[in-house]
């Protein structure tokens, strides 16, 4: 009973140091660039021409489309028809962005109906095309209510096709695109909810459409899609079977005809992450972690190839931990992913997703600073220093406590929190209630209703968080006094603080409470909700009647990790050198002794390998 709690710093940091980056990170199409391709003539056959003649009005618009774009669409369609993943990837990641920049940076892409003749009215390709079309509208332009409704319908058609065709569909799409489909679906749901909650700026037409909108972007329909994809692909069963080391045949049997196909498996996995996100947006943090039950957070699974998904996963999981008052777990989560981002930065600075990832990273640094102030730890100095550099001013205020602390917490929270939504629409279908909302409010109510309701959801969660923070407010001051003593009378401590003794004793219980947390440290391998109580502060105390006894724990310096890392690195360099082909010796060296040749070998190898090896130079000198 009386043994010590496990302390956070005694737990090993679960950072994967040696992630094979080439495997863990997808190729974002930096190497391949989409080349303009001429329109293959046979594609536009006679029937297409007739169809075009029938639409004279459209023809004018059609002729407006630059030929290279027509060629691109034809080519893109061909790649999708052939399930040619490499070509689809190039068209999707490079071609689309290239022509967006060139022709459509400020306008919509041509409507799907307009380009339909180019793709023989292929309904599947048109759905995919619309998916891109609307995504472009959302990211570059202002979607109007028709766009919002139609993008929803298009998403439904896409998921319907995937889920309700006879048997699994034969389509194949790049993983990145599959993630973007799920990600965009949830994003559009989130902006719709936010837009919908602003009652006052709506036109009569919009009010009418919202009143009759029914299930458009309703939470139930969004959850339905995600759960269906999850169940159809049997992704949870797949993950469990993988973990248990089942053979590929056994796994194939378990996951069935859908789960065997990469398209469904990836969509299933992305849906789990999608659910994590939706539940967080709705403020359900326990359910968010519960859907992740089977997912192991590590960087070695093939699911981490889509970096955007990998980063989003950690962002939302970390946020759940903050709201569960599990600050050490949030810190561990952010340290892991921020280190990952730091290491991958060199590979990805030019990727079209890099901006998004680095914005998320910034927000995670802010949340890290928040957690670090609430529960100081020494898990990773590197990340802590970067966070302090970026948010130094706020961090200083938070750590000092006092009056300025709360506004600093508030600022970082609002900057870094997810875009919370309200699950239900205002009563658009109830004219009486709507009138009450729309009519000029009585002066009494106006201060509250003046606040745009989109921020209400965020502020509701903010106030919960701030209440937790405020409860901890006396902790930093008390700790700083306790640090100076090994034992101290409660009366004396109270007089230092100019506080009532009884109040101060109660605050001491808060200090104790704040230095304990539920954490996954030491219980790895179980669900994300699991955990055990650990000690999070190096300062420990106990009150014997009216005497406070204080002890401090210290951590001996850690050497092993450094030596292990560098030994492994050296071994790898050594192996690389050994496996390098022997250079053809220069003519003069042929006659020479073997030993100098070996030196030349090493030096040559060093250069081609691009590694800088210090002793290579020393040898010459």
């Amino acid at each position: 009973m009386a043994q010590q709690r496990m302390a956070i710093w005694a737990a090993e940091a679960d950072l994967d140091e040696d992630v094979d980056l080439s495997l863990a990170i997808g190729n974002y199409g930096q190497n391949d660039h989409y080349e303009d391709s001429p329109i293959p003539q046979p594609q536009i056959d006679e029937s297409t021409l007739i169809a075009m003649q029938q639409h004279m009005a459209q023809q004018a618009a059609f002729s407006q489309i630059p030929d290279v774009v027509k060629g691109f669409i034809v080519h893109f369609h061909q790649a999708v028809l052939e399930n040619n993943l490499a070509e689809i990837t190039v068209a999707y990641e490079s071609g689309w962005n290239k022509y967006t920049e060139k022709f459509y940076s400020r306008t919509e892409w041509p409507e799907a109906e307009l380009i339909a003749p180019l793709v023989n009215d292929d309904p599947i390709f048109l759905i995919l095309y619309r998916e891109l079309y609307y995504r472009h509208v959302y990211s570059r332009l202002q979607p109007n209510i028709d766009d919002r409704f139609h993008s929803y319908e298009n998403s439904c058609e896409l998921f319907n096709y995937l889920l309700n065709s006879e048997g699994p569909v034969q389509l194949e799409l790049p993983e990145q695109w599959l993630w973007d489909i799920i990600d965009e679906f949830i994003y559009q749901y989130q902006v719709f909810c936010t837009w919908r909650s602003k009652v006052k700026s709506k036109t009569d037409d919009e009010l009418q459409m919202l009143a009759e909108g029914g299930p458009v972007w309703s939470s139930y329909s969004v959850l339905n899609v995600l759960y269906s994809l999850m169940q159809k692909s049997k992704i949870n069963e797949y993950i469990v079977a993988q973990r248990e080391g089942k053979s590929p045949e056994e796994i194939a049997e378990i996951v069935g005809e859908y789960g065997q196909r990469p398209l469904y498996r990836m969509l299933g996995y992305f849906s789990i992450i999608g659910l994590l996100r939706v539940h967080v947006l709705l403020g359900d943090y326990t359910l968010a972690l519960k859907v992740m039950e089977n997912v192991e957070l590590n960087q070695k699974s093939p699911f981490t190839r889509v970096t955007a998904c990998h980063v989003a996963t950690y962002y939302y999981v970390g946020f759940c931990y903050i709201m569960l008052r599990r600050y050490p777990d949030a810190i561990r989560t952010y340290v892991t992913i921020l280190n990952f981002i730091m290491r991958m930065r060199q590979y990805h600075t030019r990727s079209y997703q890099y901006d998004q990832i680095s914005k998320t990273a910034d927000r995670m640094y802010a949340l890290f600073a928040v957690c670090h102030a609430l529960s100081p730890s020494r898990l990773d100095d590197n990340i802590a220093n970067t966070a302090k550099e970026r948010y130094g001013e706020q961090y200083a205020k938070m750590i000092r406590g006092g009056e300025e602390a709360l506004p600093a917490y508030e600022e970082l929270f609002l900057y870094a929190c997810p875009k919370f939504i309200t699950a239900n629409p205002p009563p658009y279908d109830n004219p009486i209630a709507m009138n009450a909302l729309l009519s000029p409010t009585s002066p009494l109510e106006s201060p509250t209703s003046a606040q745009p309701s989109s921020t209400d959801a965020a502020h509701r969660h903010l106030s919960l968080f701030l209440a937790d923070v405020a409860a901890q407010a006396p902790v930093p001051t008390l700790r700083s006094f306790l640090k100076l003593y090994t034992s101290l009378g409660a009366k004396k401590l109270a007089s230092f603080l100019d506080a009532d003794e009884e109040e101060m004793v109660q605050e001491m219980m808060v200090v104790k409470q704040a230095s304990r947390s539920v954490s996954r440290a030491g219980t790895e391998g179980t669900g994300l909700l699991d955990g055990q109580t650990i000690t999070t502060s190096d300062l420990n105390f106990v009150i014997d009647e009216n005497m406070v006894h204080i002890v401090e724990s210290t951590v001996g310096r850690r050497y092993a990790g450094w030596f292990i890392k560098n030994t492994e690195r050296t071994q790898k360099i050594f192996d690389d050198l050994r496996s390098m082909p022997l250079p053809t010796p220069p003519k003069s060296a042929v006659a020479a002794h073997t030993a100098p040749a070996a030196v030349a070998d090493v030096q040559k190898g060093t250069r081609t390998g691009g590694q800088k090896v210090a002793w290579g130079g020393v040898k010459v000198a």
Partner: protein
Amino acid sequence: MASSWITPPTRTELIEDLVSGVDRYNPSNVSILEDYLYHQIRSEEYDCLANLAILKLYQFNPDLYNPDVVINILLKALTASPLPDFNLCIALLDERPINTSLDEPDPLPQLLPVLNGLHDLLYRCRFPTFWKTYRSDELESLRDNYTVEVVGFENAVRAVAVRAVKAAFTRISAERLGSYLDLNGPDLEAYLNDLGWAIERSNSVVVIPPNPDNQIEATVVQESIKLPQLAKIISHSALKA
């Protein structure tokens, strides 16, 4: 969270299926979960995740909303402090439009600030103030209409105080402890007796049994290297040999 929090041993299979499956979204199951809540209230059990499932259904189906159920859920969550249960429940209570379908005025908007205040006092370990507030005239309707139905509510609050005291004290004066528990004289003695905490007669000081949180010692954490960390290096050397 301890596993008994995630899956209380008292949870039945039926409830487990609702909590962990997709059936939790089915509005027709709300009465099963509500019955389970009232069962918790009568038999001093507690299942946070099942109660959150009710609030989730309310969140998606505003017409199911029942303020009495919400208040009872919040009262149960209140005494889970310092776990975040109370906040987790509040986070699921969306802003709701003025509900016209209820027969009586919704008591929740009035009670919510009161409950928030009580939670704040408990989370900040202000136990004497908590009792004073809880026993005040203003809270009479909360006591008469709600907490009286929650069997063992006051003892559940005392359990919160006991958890805090256990972690921070090795010995505490009976008077101070009494003010945290809102007990004195024979009641206090009986309560401490049940806990197994002894009172020193001479100076009426209560001795808290040792536990992981009130045993302190200065430690130096040394790093320990586990074999798997060295696996790579050793296997590499083995290959060479």
